[in-house]
Each structure stands twice: as C-alpha cells, then as structure tokens.
C-alpha cells in the first residue's frame, strides 16, 4: 500500500508531533526531504504517498516538488554538482569552469556520468558571488558548499565521493 508511510513511520510520527493536529500538511516539505535524501529524487508514487499521508492532493504535493529547485522529480546522479553561472559568477569564469569540468567528466551540463555518481548542472545564484567559481554538492548527506574552486579540485572531489561509495 503506502510504502512511504511504512518506511518512515517513526519519522512521520515525530514530524506530526511538531505541528497542530489539524495542520498535517505542514509536514509535506520535511517528508519530501526524507525521500529526496534517500532516493535522490521524488517519483510519482512517492508524491501520491506523501499526499495521502498529509491529507492533500497529489497535485498540491507535486506543486511543492516543482517549485523548490532542490527537490527533483527525475533520477540523476547520486551527487549533484550545482554550479552557479549567474552574472557575477560568470564574470569570475564560472562558465569556463562548468565547461571544463563537464569536458573532464565526459558529459554535457545537465548530464550524469556513466557510473551514475555525478551530475553536473548550472543553477541560479547561490549567494557566494565573490568566491566564484563555486558550486554546491547535493547528495545523500545533505548539501555542501565549495568555493574558490579549480577544475582539478572539483575532479578530486568527484573521485573522493566515488571512492567513498566503493568503501561503503
């Protein structure tokens, strides 16, 4: 039936305890976070599950997923390298950084490495304009910022992350 409800039974209980009993829908974003953390994206079934759990329609849950850029509705790499190339970052070479990193990984911006580990995508402002080139990594452990980056440093990071996976 509702696998999300079964899988996160304890977390859901804790979340609901934080909100008034008649405001279950307040838990929609933390619930989506749980799913995003564990699966890297939120599929249609998960949307329906969450809707059932918090008592709103799947359409409303999907709207939340669609609105916030850190929720994803399609599977991509385990780690998402999100490089800001808005104007101030571009002036500090973000576009070139993005192109070179992608070239080194053998993918286009928005694509994922064949091993399914790394996705590189261009995003809007991450509020670190003075420290470009910069990116954030969204992965199972959460989000980390990486500022004043070089392509070599970024490649090193991808290797470290891949290595950690092998050990795990």
């Amino acid at each position, binding site marked *: 039936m509702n696998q999300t409800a079964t899988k996160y039974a304890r977390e859901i209980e804790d979340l609901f305890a934080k909100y008034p009993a008649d405001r279950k829908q307040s838990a929609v974003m933390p619930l989506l976070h749980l799913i995003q953390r564990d699966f890297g994206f939120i599929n*249609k079934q998960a*949307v*329906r599950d969450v*809707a059932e759990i918090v008592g*709103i*329609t*799947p*359409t*409303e*849950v*999907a*709207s939340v997923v*669609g*609105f916030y850029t850190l929720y994803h509705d399609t599977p991509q790499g385990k780690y998402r390298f999100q490089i800001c190339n808005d104007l101030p970052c571009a002036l500090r070479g973000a576009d070139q950084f993005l192109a070179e990193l992608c070239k080194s990984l053998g993918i286009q911006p928005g694509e994922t490495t064949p091993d399914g580990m790394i996705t590189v995508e261009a995003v809007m402002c991450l509020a670190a304009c003075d420290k470009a080139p910069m990116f954030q990594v969204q992965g199972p452990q959460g989000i980390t910022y990486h500022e004043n980056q070089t392509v070599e440093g970024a490649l090193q990071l991808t290797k470290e992350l891949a290595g950690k996976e092998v050990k795990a």
Partner: protein
Amino acid sequence: MANEITLTIDGKQVTVPAGTLIVDAARELGIDIPVFCYHPKMEPVGMCRMCLVEVGRPMVDRATNQPVMEADGTPKLQFGPKMETACTTPVSAGMVVIGMSDKVKAARNDVLEFLLTSHPLDCPICDKGGECPLQNLTMGFGKGSSRFEFEDKQHNQKHVPLGELIYLDRERCIQCGRCVRFQKDLADDPVIGFYQRGRNLVIDTSSEPGFDSIFSGNTTDICPVGALTTADFRFGARPWELKSAASLCNHCAVGCNLTYNTRREAKSDGNVVIKRAMPRQNEAVNEIWLCDKGRFGYHFAESHQRLEKPLIRKDGELVESTWDEALDMAAKELRAYGFRFVSLASGRLSNEDLYEIKQLTENLHGQACLYSPMAGGDLTPLIGYADPQGLSRVGKGTVIVVAASNLHQEAPIWWMQVRAAVKRGAKLIVVNARSTRLDKFASAVVRYRFGREAEAVLSLVPAAETSGESGKIIAAAENLVVLYGSDGIGLEGSRQVAAASAELLRASNLLGKPGSGLLPVWQRANDQGAWDTGFTPVDDLAKVVSEADGVLIAGADPAGDHPAYAAALKKAKFIIVQEQFLTKTAQLADIVFPVQSMLERDGSYTNGTRRVQRFMPVVEKLPGTRPDYLVTAQVRQKVVHSNLEFISAAQVFMVLAAHLPDYQNLTYATLMETVPQHPILGRSDVYYGGTSFENRQGLGVQLGTAANRRDKYSLPAAPSTQNQLPDLEHAEELMAVPVAELLDTGTITQKSVLLGKRTSTPFALMHPKTAQQKGLAAGDKAKISLAGVTYQAVVRVDESVPTLHVLLPRSLGIPLDKPVLVKVIQ
C-alpha cells in the same frame, strides 16, 4: 452612511460600500480597469500587474492630523511614487484614481509585452480568438511589434489533455492562476496546480483520472486566454460564428441558467447544431457556474437513436405509424379504458407538458403520479426556501442544515454555494448516515443509522433533549435553511425526512423570514413543477400501474429502471408512452409518441427553490416529433372533445397561470424580465469575469410561500421517531440503500458520449468490516442478488458507512428505489 465610501475615478464620483476594491468600484461607473488574474468571484492576488493605476489619497498634516488643503480649498492629494494594483486596493474616502493616464497606459503596455514574451500569438487557430482578454487588451494597450527575439521564446506543449474533458495549451498560459484558485477555493478540488517556476511554470494535474473534478469546465470560462479549452469545443467553431439561445440545465433541481451556442454546419447537413454550453449569469441560481454534467450533458438530443415516427402495436409488434393513426388509436382506446387511468410523468418534463397531462388525467378521472422517490413538494409552497437572492448571498447569521443528502453529487452547484456560504460566515450542520464532502465545512455533524433519518433531524430541534451543540447553533440562528435529499432513502423515508425538516423549521420560529425555509434536493429539473401542477409520487407504483386500464407515461423509463415496474406494466391493459428514445418502457407500449427534447422547443421549469424559469428553442426540431404538451393536448382533444386552443407553450402557460394560484400573474414575459446583477459580468469585456453570458433572456420569477405571505397553513404532524428499517443484527442479508451518483447512466445522460468516459461504474459502498464479513475488499467485484437477479458491482469501502449496509448508486444498472434487503457475495 458610515460604511459607504465616496471616491473619484477618472473624474467621476462613485459611492460604494467600504471594502470594495478599486477595480469593482470603477466597474460601477462603467470604467473598465483591465485585469487578468483578478476575478470578482475569487479573492484578489495581484499577480498579473495588469490593473496598475495611479492612486491619490488626501494628504494629512501629521502634526495637526488635519487634511491639507490646496490654495483653492480642495484637499491636497498625495500620489504614491509607484502605481497600485486596482484589484487588491480597497477604496478609501476621498481617494482619487487615475486609470487612463500616459503612465498607466505605459504600464499596461509593459505588462502586455512581458506576458507576450513567450505567448505563441496563434490567435488564428485559437478557440479563444475573438473572445480573448489577452487579444483584446493587446489590441487596446499593447505594442504593434515585439522587441523580443523570436528564438528566445519559451516553447511548451500545445496539446496536454488534463483529463477527458479539458485540454491545456501550455504556451498560451499566462500563469494568472485563476483556474488553480477556482479549483481550490470554490470547487474544493485542488487537482490542478502550478508545476516548476519562472518561465518553466506550467499547469499540471496529478490526480487519477486527470483533472478529477465535476466542476472542471468552469476553468475554461474564466481562463483569460486560450490555454484551457474543453474537449467539446476545442477546434469546433469560431466564437463569432455562433448564435446564442437561452436555456436551462435539465439535469437537477438547481435549474442552472445556460446559453447554448449554435451554428449551421455542413457536416450536419446544414442543420443547426450546438457547439457548446456556457453559463448564463443568474446570481439567484447558478451565479456564473455550471457543473460538468450540465455543461457536457446536452448531446442526448443529437443521438441517432431518437424516435422520429409514432409507433403503434399491431399483432404484438410495434410498427411505425402516422400521427393521425396513432392519435386516433390513443383516443379510441382511452375512451374504452378510461375508467382507471393513470398518468406517470417525471420532472424531466416542463410545466406546460405536466399541466396538459394533468388536465387529461382529470378529464379521465385518473390518477396523476410523479415518478420520483422524494416527498415534500406539498410543503414547499407553504414553507419553502424562497429567498429571491438564492443561496449565493447566504452568510453570517444563517444556519444551513443538509439532511440525508450527498449534495456534491445530487446538486453540485448548491454544494458549491453552501460551501461558499460557510466561508462567508454561515453555519452548517450536516445530518447524514455517512460522511460526505460537506462534513469538513460543518460546525456540527450528526450521524444516524439508515432508517433513523427523521429522528436525527428532529434531534436538532433546540428544545429536544438530545439537541446538544447543533441545537445551540440552531437556537442562535437568524435564518434557517433545511436542505434534504435522497441519500439512502426511498419515498417513505423521504416523507419522514421532509416532515421532520418541516418540524425543525416550525420549531425554530424562523418561518416567515425570506431567508428561512425548506429546500428539497429533487432529482430532476422540474420535480417541483410536477408537484405544483398536481402530480404526487405513490408508494406502490407497481401496484397502481398493474391495476390500471390505461397508462400514460411521459419523461420516465420505469421499466428500464426496475424489473418490478416492467412486470407491472405488462399487466396494464393499454400503455401510451411519450418518449424521445425507444426505452424499455416504450418497448412495452401500445402507442409510442416521438417527442421533442427540451432543446427543440420552449417551456418552463420550476426549480428547487420554486423559481419559475423559461427555456427557448435551441436547435431545429427533429422532423416528425412534437412537444409533449401538444401530443397530450391532441390526445385530449380527441378523447374529451376539448378545444385545441393551446398550440404553443406560451398559451399553455397562460392557462396554467390562470388556474394555479401560486403562478398567478406569471407570463412568459414576466419570466423574461431582468434586473442588473452584481458583480457586473458577461459583457463583451470578457476579461473581467470570463466568458459567461450576460442574462438578457430572463432571471425567472421566485414564487412566494404561504409562510412568507403570513397566510394560514398547516404542516403535517412531526413524524414518528421509530426506526423505519428492520433490525439487521441477525440478518444474513445486507440492507441495500440507494444513493445518488452525478455521472450516472440515466435516459438522457447516457446518450452524451463525451461524459461517457467519466461515467461512474456500478459500485457497492460498504463499511470495511461488512465487506470483510462477506469476504470482499475494496476493488473486488461483488455479486448483489436482488429480487432473484444478480448484479455486479465494484466494492468500495468507507469507514463512515454504517455496518451491515451496502450503498448502491441509482441509475447505474442496479434497480433500487428504496432500502431493501439484498444478498451480497463474492
């Protein structure tokens, strides 16, 4: 008056109630401030910025708190540095609004340029072209050319079926959110929403099936561009080719006003065909809304299964005949068998038809039966809810009781209005055996086991010992409206509920106030008219019919609905049927007269609140058919040699009005009178309220009640509070009760192909425990054995349904007209 505010808009003074928004105040002056996202029936959001105007307010000296005056003695005005949105800014005293300066025009130009950056401008192939706010306002305020690079346009999908009924063109969408807000705030079906954001923002649905709402068609009316279109009208015609004909919806007791758009088409052999149904504003009835059944359920008239020639029975077979032969035969037989004559008619017929049938029945000293499982039509002339403003203005101070009704399915527009009334401050008490979609808006919910409806309603009487919280709510009411429906009850149950509702109203001491009264949720459009013209439902219809010598059936298919009626009809000696289709009842007839549908003729209906309204001919009549009233009149002329003076509906209505006291002084002319309605909608400036039609063809006339006139009247005694149904504790069988399903397969609904895709399938709704006892789970197919016949239904479960009961839908193939015991097996 203290709560009225005077302000100046474009040099003209206007006085409006406090709290009015600038855009609405301007409207009163005939000044149109363009809007996209604003809609007068919804809360403002100020998203589109189209309504920016310059607003000046009288300057106040902060030191003295006195208005600052100019040298000439007029108040000095302070204009803000920026313009304000007229749709979110309430008026204030002395305000001066400038709605047509160069600055304002420049702002409109900018907003339009912005909206058009990715709009495809495919007006030549767009259904909205010709009645499109974006098109009109671009012509009025936009640029002739675009500064935007063509390659930079955002391209989106142009053909997205949101459901079977509504298509979305994502390129045309200007993201005003009217549809999303309508579905959430008014329809309570938030099944479409925004997805993604910025330039990627699209409207999307995640419901199963897509756009799962019975109000979906309304979004196409209020969409200010051609983004949302109906499957019915998409690429069907251009708006300027269309002619309009005023009509009424004939699917339920609300009596929604609508306008059919028609044109002649080559593919229909040059005949006039209906291209779409649009709401026609009547604030006292449906405001500007229609449910999907009303909007898409008119195709029955185009069905190729329509009867075009009279049929008579010769040597046991129904064969085609001529009108003269069939009429002569009818008259001959009726003269021979006229001792025990029964007419059976339904609220599908107009007042004129029913009046003629009633006259014939009286001439033959027969019995006029109403084909309906609901009682109480004799109470409405006494204590009916007869507020000339209808439910659309009900708010604070009013208590609404909804008893034994799944209002969402029985009368969708009233459901929407009850919900809106609660938002405006009315209190709602729901009295039902199971949970319905009104429960979450209710101040109190009263549950009962089926059979104890009357007892539950009487428990609300403030003096009753059991009344509790709901009794307190009613005791504090300034007005009381009691709606009762037919959820899980047959005629006897309905009689009990009606009497109990009347008793509740009487005990409230609020009768006589125009805003208080009884409102039956009839199943058909003109059931009330049938009561008013002298038809009453009978308890044992099968017996009455089987004992009759001659039976006239019009607008009803009892044999198709229930095998018991079919068996009874087979016993009747002589049957005349007036029908559009060769129904099962018609197949049993000795004479079948082919009649016109309501779309081919004129007439009048009396809706649930007893508002008498008129409908006009929309399409040309099917050759060979005649209107019901004429058929009956011609039979009557031959039987009793009456003068055939009534050859038009208008003439029949004149006679009817002369004979029915409540209808005195009514003529078609009075039914066609209109008064200005608020909000002012439906004019050529379609951007304000959408493409609903202005009502120029009549708002109808609300009949009064004895209570409101302070006449003397007497109500039936309060019903007994005995359980009307047997005790089930030790029964092998389950108690099956009939419930309403909006999209059923009634005689006329099932001929509307478009709705067919959304029609419900037969279901058996049970408490999960009851289902379990029978070895069933949700989704299983259950076999229901009823009077020796087995029917299949898909099991649905709901914990609010009383145990040991099974709820079966009416008009979906399972014959059930009252609670009966059935066997349910796997």
